């Protein structure tokens, strides 16, 4: 693992490389002087003194960054913006305006609604329902026990099987989950969350593909495989040490890059981290620092930067501050390009692309008057599309109350379809580009993200900033401050702390089929009786050895899947070999 302490800060590298690259000024300097004179006179003669005094205002929004905004933006706000350097044409460096030249005219955003509840057959039906209604991708969420790597017969799982996701324990569950779904055609985002469970769950998908006779190189989709989730965001009584978790993450990346070449081996997660409690700036800074840690480690393992970078993808949360959301997507595209180009000397354009999926914010939704949540999610989704995302999930209006009902899931999908087909916004690439405000805020966001990257580097880099508790403290401070702002009504949430009506208390919510727990227990019991337990023992022993010897873990977890090991059995091996880590306390 590289220690960024001894290295030049990323911000420093970018500063040196960007010096003297200016291509030309968009505005004529003489004319700008006139604009300035006009603006000064307008301020003096037209704008009321009170308005002038409050020229800068800070929008207070859920998950916002509290960047001050001027009352109005003019050419002077972006006087130094060099079109070629700061924007470029769409599909050209620095990709501020989008990674493709024709963006949604060529390929629209993938409409990938999260799905998962109950047993495999319950979720199988909901997947088919969404695909039949025009969803263009699968986005699979596991139940709490599966995510936390407890089999359904573990005491920790009692009562939680099938809650908030689908229960899968072994390959046979996967076969039921994907029954009648063509995995050579449909792409799947498999929301495994952590590196440790990605190492156990993704091989089950691969073994299922083998059984269906589909070669691995035809499989398309993504897994999450993100250490931020396992070590920072996750709620658990058992953590393995960050360095081992990071090693598993990189083992997964290495194995998948070699063997499943079209698969996105990580979705660098900002979403859950931000939803936990942080601004859109910190979300992106941590994700960028994480991306760099991966590149450093893979280079250390002897791989080319491009080989890894061209398949890196990000996952963002979409908050309520509309323009900030648009601008930070544009800013991050530019920044990621610059990091890859100047720090990592990437050769392929694709390696420098900030490709991303975005999910509208769940934490911004409230229980009161729940239909208002449709409006919140719609604006968040609109900002995402204006910001140029590749893939989108819109949260459902009932998510502050329960797992989404079929009706609510359909409205989320319809929200995406209405944006795409009815509003006309997809016909022009980067339609907000060139707005004085949008460009000024994009610049500001980029600077702030880079400044927070420097903070993380001062901590010794991404892994260390988790291990030493720096990021935990940062989240806690943000979370409690935001809570106070909501309590005091400084952040206004309509129907919740402002304009309250008391409606929504009789809301009929979706209930997942709780009886799936008995079905899954029975199924697991039969599975354990029918498999060859000697082979299971051997595969787990070999996995144990690989963990100790530093061999690529996924080589061994694939074999575990083949012989019928469960997720829980493999997690036990990780805990045993790596030991448990005490996560720094938040408060």
């Amino acid at each position, binding site marked *: 693992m590289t220690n960024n302490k001894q290295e030049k800060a990323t911000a420093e590298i970018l500063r040196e490389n960007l010096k003297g690259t200016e291509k030309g000024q968009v505005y004529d300097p003489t004319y700008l002087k006139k604009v300035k004179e006009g603006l000064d006179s307008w301020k003096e003669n037209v704008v009321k003194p009170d308005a002038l005094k409050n020229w800068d205002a800070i929008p207070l929004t859920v998950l916002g960054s509290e960047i001050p905004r001027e009352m109005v933006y003019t050419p002077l706000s972006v006087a130094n913006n060099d079109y070629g350097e700061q924007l470029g044409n769409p599909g050209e460096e620095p990709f501020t305006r989008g990674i493709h030249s024709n963006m949604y005219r060529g390929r629209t955003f993938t409409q990938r609604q999260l799905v998962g509840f109950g047993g495999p057959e319950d979720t199988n039906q909901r997947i088919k329902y969404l695909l039949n209604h025009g969803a263009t991708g699968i986005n699979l969420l596991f139940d709490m026990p599966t995510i936390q790597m407890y089999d359904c017969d573990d005491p920790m799982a009692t009562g939680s099987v099938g809650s908030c996701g689908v229960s899968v324990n072994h390959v046979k569950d996967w076969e039921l989950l994907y029954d009648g779904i063509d995995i050579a055609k449909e792409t799947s985002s498999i929301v495994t969350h952590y590196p440790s469970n990605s190492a156990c769950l993704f091989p089950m998908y691969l073994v299922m593909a083998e059984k269906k006779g589909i070669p691995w190189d035809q499989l398309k989709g993504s897994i999450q495989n993100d250490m931020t989730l396992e070590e920072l965001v996750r709620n658990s009584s058992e953590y393995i040490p960050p360095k081992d978790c990071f090693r598993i993450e990189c083992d997964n990346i290495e194995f998948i890059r070699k063997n499943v070449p079209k698969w996105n081996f990580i979705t660098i997660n900002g979403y859950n981290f931000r939803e936990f409690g942080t601004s859109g700036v910190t979300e992106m800074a941590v994700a960028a620092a994480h991306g760099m840690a991966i590149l450093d480690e893979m280079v250390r393992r002897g791989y080319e930067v491009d080989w890894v970078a061209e398949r890196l993808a990000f996952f963002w949360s979409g908050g309520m501050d509309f323009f900030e959301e648009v601008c930070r997507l544009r800013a991050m595209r530019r920044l990621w390009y610059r990091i890859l180009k100047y720090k990592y000397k990437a050769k392929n354009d694709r390696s420098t692309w900030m490709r991303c999926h975005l999910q509208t914010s769940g934490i911004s939704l409230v229980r009161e008057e729940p239909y208002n949540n449709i409006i919140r999610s719609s604006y968040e989704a609109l900002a995402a599309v204006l910001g140029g995302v590749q893939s989108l999930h819109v949260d459902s209006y009932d998510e502050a109350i329960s797992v989404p009902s079929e009706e609510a899931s359909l409205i989320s999908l319809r929200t995406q379809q209405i944006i795409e087909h009815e509003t006309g916004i997809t016909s022009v690439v980067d339609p907000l580009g060139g707005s004085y405000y949008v460009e000024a805020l994009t610049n500001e966001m980029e600077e702030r993200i880079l400044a927070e990257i420097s903070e993380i580097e001062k901590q010794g880099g991404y892994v260390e900033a988790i291990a030493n508790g720096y990021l935990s403290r940062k989240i806690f401070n943000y979370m409690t401050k935001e809570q106070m702002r909501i309590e005091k009504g400084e952040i206004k949430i309509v129907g919740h702390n402002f304009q309250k009506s008391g409606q929504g*208390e009789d809301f009929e919510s979706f209930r997942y089929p709780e009886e799936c727990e008995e079905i899954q227990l029975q199924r697991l019991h039969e599975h354990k009786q029918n498999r060859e337990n000697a082979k299971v023992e051997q595969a787990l022993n070999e996995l144990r050895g690989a963990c100790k010897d530093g061999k690529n873990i996924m080589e061994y977890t694939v074999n575990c899947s083949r012989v019928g090991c469960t997720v829980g059995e493999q997690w036990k091996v990780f805990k045993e070999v790596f030991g448990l880590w005490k996560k720094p306390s938040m408060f």
Partner: protein
Amino acid sequence: MENKIIKVLMCCLGPETHNRGIILVSSILKEEGMEVVYMGNTTAENAIKAATEEDVRVIGVSSLSGAHLRTGKHLLELAKQKGLDNDIAFIIGGVIPPNDVKSLKDMGFHNVCVSGTKREELVAAIQEAAYSVV
């Protein structure tokens, strides 16, 4: 009763992944002067065991994934079995549908604090629960 002598055990039953709620509520209760035993994820068995050892008055359960009826019932049944249901008061909170609030109260939860519950309401709910087992 003064807040400083109220001792609350805060936990999530089973593998709940969401923790913004339990962290915020725990920090609010601490700010309000209560003693918080932060247990995080645990089984019903271990929560009861720890509550006895730590001599807490109130167990607060945070649930956001929809499993509250099952996990909640299991916890209360266990407390009853051990004869602790009159010594400890139980409170549950989180993402809980309106229709389940009554079911949980009928089951034996002293109060149900759904997501978005205000600080004063939270504190009052815990105080009331603590009083009920004095």
